[in-house]
């Protein structure tokens, strides 16, 4: 039986749509029912809402369906010329604030969100009445829905500007978003996630200062905290950790799911990062590298501007400056949007779970992950009249089965990979192109590489591979390795100082790995489609971030 109305139905969904693209960036491995629901409802809604709010002339947003925990999307371009013209007039005014004062629009959105987050972060799930819990669930849903609305409102506008700048550069300068000059223009920017990493590095320095290095390095990560609590200096560090988690702990190793504990719930990932940071030879050189990157970016800007006549420089620099914010936006928004909203959402689900379990309505705290919102509404509205345990048990069984099926078709429909790419290009959906689906790589036999992808950040590196399929294994990464993953999430930034390079199966030039790689000045190759299938941990790799290719050396 269907859980919701956005489950894929070939009878309906392939009648007028030609093709559906797997969102391998986010939905591999497959999601729990609650998360999949929020994606197909709130996130899908937000695409439509934002495209309408901005009045994107030829795009109604993206449509989404679920197939067994995986998301598939397809563009919905507008083809009626009269409608396009009508939308254009409105678009002119709606896009203007982004060009006139981008930062103001950004700050207003962030303020609005934190206004929604703050009371939810303080909400006491143990003491609240069921009336309050019921109301809280509506607030959580409203917060989450609003988060996605603002998210896509900002993202469509930002990437449209980015796409214009990229198009001008491609045609006129012969560079695109896979060229080195392009990456130079986009590097040397700080963002709010880096700030979190910087503070994490300060915790590492504190551990060293307090003489705790031995404690960290001699015990497994999950036993470090109990040991620290045994000494005064250890407790001092634990207090600093608590202060850190208060601000930066609203994140989960997998950003797009509810099934991993947040750092606040279980700080073991933080401890593991501190251990990684304390290993010999690791340095946090983001800030040391930054001035050189900034200087190099300024040189690249000057190079580009020199080719623009003086009377045209005003609008061109303005456009460039806003386009450059795309990378910062990509990372900073993760911190303020998905990380926090999803961690808050999870905290609420577990809170309801505990309370409903006590009423015999559910069996375990994380049972709500296997429900959809209406079912939870029923339960919270009248807990004593519902027993949802059989429903959850059945869903858990289904999930155990489909979550193991990682090899999902990239496309569903009647188009070849090439035709599907052309279809996506024609639809001109900047978010699909740059993030969720990415441009498909071209095989370039002359390079005789083992994998062909998209150049995400320039440079060449050699080193042993570390294949990570599950975000919970990020702690296994050793200094000097090349990370190979389906995609990297912004929760993974702390390991970047350790890495020589990154190869991903999916993602475009604004994907997380590419943006962060440029700041750490390491080569990144994205959208290879099959790196995690072809590469095994320990194999030596050479990755070429100029060409976007990978060589397996042994």
């Amino acid at each position, binding site marked *: 039986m269907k859980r919701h109305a956005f489950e894929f139905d070939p009878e309906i969904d392939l009648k007028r749509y030609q093709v559906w693209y797997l969102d391998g960036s986010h939905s591999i491995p497959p999601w729990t029912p609650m998360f999949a629901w929020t994606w197909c409802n709130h996130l899908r809604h937000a695409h439509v809402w934002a495209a309408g709010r901005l009045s994107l002339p030829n795009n109604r947003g993206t449509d989404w369906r679920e197939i067994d925990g995986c998301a598939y999307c397809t563009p919905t371009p507008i083809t009626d010329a009269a409608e396009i013209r009508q939308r254009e007039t409105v678009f002119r005014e709606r896009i203007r604030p982004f060009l006139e004062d981008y930062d103001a629009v950004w700050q207003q959105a962030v303020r609005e969100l934190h206004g929604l987050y703050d009371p939810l972060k303080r909400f006491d799930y143990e003491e609240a009445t069921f009336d309050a819990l019921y109301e809280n669930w509506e607030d959580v849903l409203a917060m989450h829905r609003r988060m996605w609305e603002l998210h896509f409102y900002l993202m469509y506008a930002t990437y449209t500007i980015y796409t*214009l700048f990229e198009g001008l550069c491609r045609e006129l300068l012969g560079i695109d978003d896979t060229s080195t000059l392009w990456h130079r223009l986009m590097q040397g920017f700080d963002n709010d996630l880096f700030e979190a990493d910087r503070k994490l590095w300060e915790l590492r320095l504190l551990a060293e200062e307090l003489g705790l290095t031995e404690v960290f390095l001699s015990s497994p990560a999950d036993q470090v905290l109990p040991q620290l609590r045994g000494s005064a200096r250890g407790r001092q560090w634990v207090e600093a950790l608590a202060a850190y988690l208060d601000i930066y702990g609203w994140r989960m190793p997998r950003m797009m799911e509810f099934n991993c504990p947040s750092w606040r719930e279980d700080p073991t990932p933080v401890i593991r990062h501190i251990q990684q940071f304390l290993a010999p030879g690791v340095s946090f050189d983001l800030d040391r590298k930054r001035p050189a990157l900034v200087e190099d970016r300024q040189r690249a800007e000057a190079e580009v501007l020199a080719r623009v006549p003086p009377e045209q420089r005003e609008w061109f620099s303005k456009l460039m400056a806003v386009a450059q914010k795309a990378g910062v936006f990509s990372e900073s928004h993760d911190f303020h949007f998905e990380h926090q909203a999803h961690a808050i959402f999870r905290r609420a689900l577990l809170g309801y779970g505990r309370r409903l379990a006590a009423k015999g309505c559910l069996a375990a705290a994380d049972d709500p992950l296997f429900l959809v919102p209406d079912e939870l509404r029923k339960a919270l509205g009248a807990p004593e009249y519902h027993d949802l345990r059989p429903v959850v048990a059945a869903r858990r069984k289904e999930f155990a089965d489909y979550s193991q099926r990682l090899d999902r078709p990239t496309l569903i429909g009647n188009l070849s990979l090439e035709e599907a790419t052309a279809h996506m290009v024609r639809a001109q959906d900047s978010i699909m192109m740059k993030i969720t689906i990415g441009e498909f790589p071209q095989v370039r036999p002359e390079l005789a590489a083992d994998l062909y992808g998209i150049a995400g950040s320039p440079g060449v590196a050699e080193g042993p591979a570390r294949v990570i399929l599950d975000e919970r294994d990020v702690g296994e990464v050793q200094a000097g390795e090349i990370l190979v993953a389906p995609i990297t999430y912004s929760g993974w930034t702390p390991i970047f100082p350790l890495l020589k390079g990154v190869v991903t199966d999916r993602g475009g030039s604004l994907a997380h790995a590419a943006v962060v790689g440029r700041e750490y000045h390491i080569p990144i190759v994205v959208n290879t489609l099959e790196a995690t299938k072809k590469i095994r941990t320990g194999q030596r790799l050479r990755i070429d971030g100029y060409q976007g290719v990978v060589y397996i050396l042994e």
Partner: protein
Amino acid sequence: MAKWIRWLEELCQADYALVGKKCANWGEMAGLGLPVPPGFALTVEAYEYFFARTGLRRKICAILDDYAPRLEEYRVYLEASQAIREVVEGEELPEEIAAELRRAYAALSLRCGTVAVPVSVRSSGPVSRPGQFETYLNVKGEAMLCRKVVHCWSSTFTAQALAYRRQRNLPLAEEPIAVGVMRLVEARAAGVAFTADPATGATDRIVIEGSWGLGESVVGGRVSPDRFVLAKQDLSLISSRHGEKGTKVVATTGGVEEIAVEAAERARPCLGLEELTYLGRLVLKLEEHFGVPQDVEWAVSATSAFPQNIFLLQTRPIAGLSLGAAANWEPRATSRTPTDHIIDLMLRRVFQSS
């Protein structure tokens, strides 16, 4: 559905990987309702199939292996080119492709109201390489068409093309291209039009160069052409210089021929004012659509009356124009501030509308 053929009507700008830039833009022009001759494209895949199927790829690699150590002097490139082109042109078009090609050609001829329509056979690479590959004019009959397609593919192994690829570390042994098959415009006059001055980068004007006969003489630089400059704003004639136009290329029974132009004809401008203005309006539509100054090939048919006699044959961005010049296209009336200008660009380029 044909495997290797795409009709003009099926093509648009996004298809450049499949049918090369020239053909993709040809389709885009048709989609805009601009006057282009009818025809079809043989896809890049046909090239790949031909070289794989015939075993040519292996043979070419073997020849290149022989020459590779000595590929320094241009003379050696010439020798290598000759050796490769000999084996390539010694091959027949595989029947699978030939059959499709014959079918499409017959259909095109029928559309043009004849049995063997004269066509031009044009190379069309996914990456622009102006002037590197060959184009054949006035190709008639299916046997000749099949030959010329092979010649077109073979022209990816000219000494010039080999040297170019070598210099840029591109693979030498192939450069897949598509081939455009376009009804020949039996031109009274032909030439090129630029929607910015390619020499100075000035974007307030349109520069049109033309001469008598088929476009070959202007494109190939064989004559000193007429040169007309129009103001972009109102398409008024700013200047016109009459070239010598000593010879012209004309279609003959077996191909084309260069003949002398009579004295009286030399002195006359090859385009009338009415034709100039009309052509100017057409190329401006192209610039508006593509968003950057265009380099357009045009022809005026000898067999039809104005304005049905004017055809656009290909378009591409003007090569080597500095960014400044190219970006300085006519701001619209609404573009009062830099923000307006950016929004205009966004509407025209990102959403490719208005």
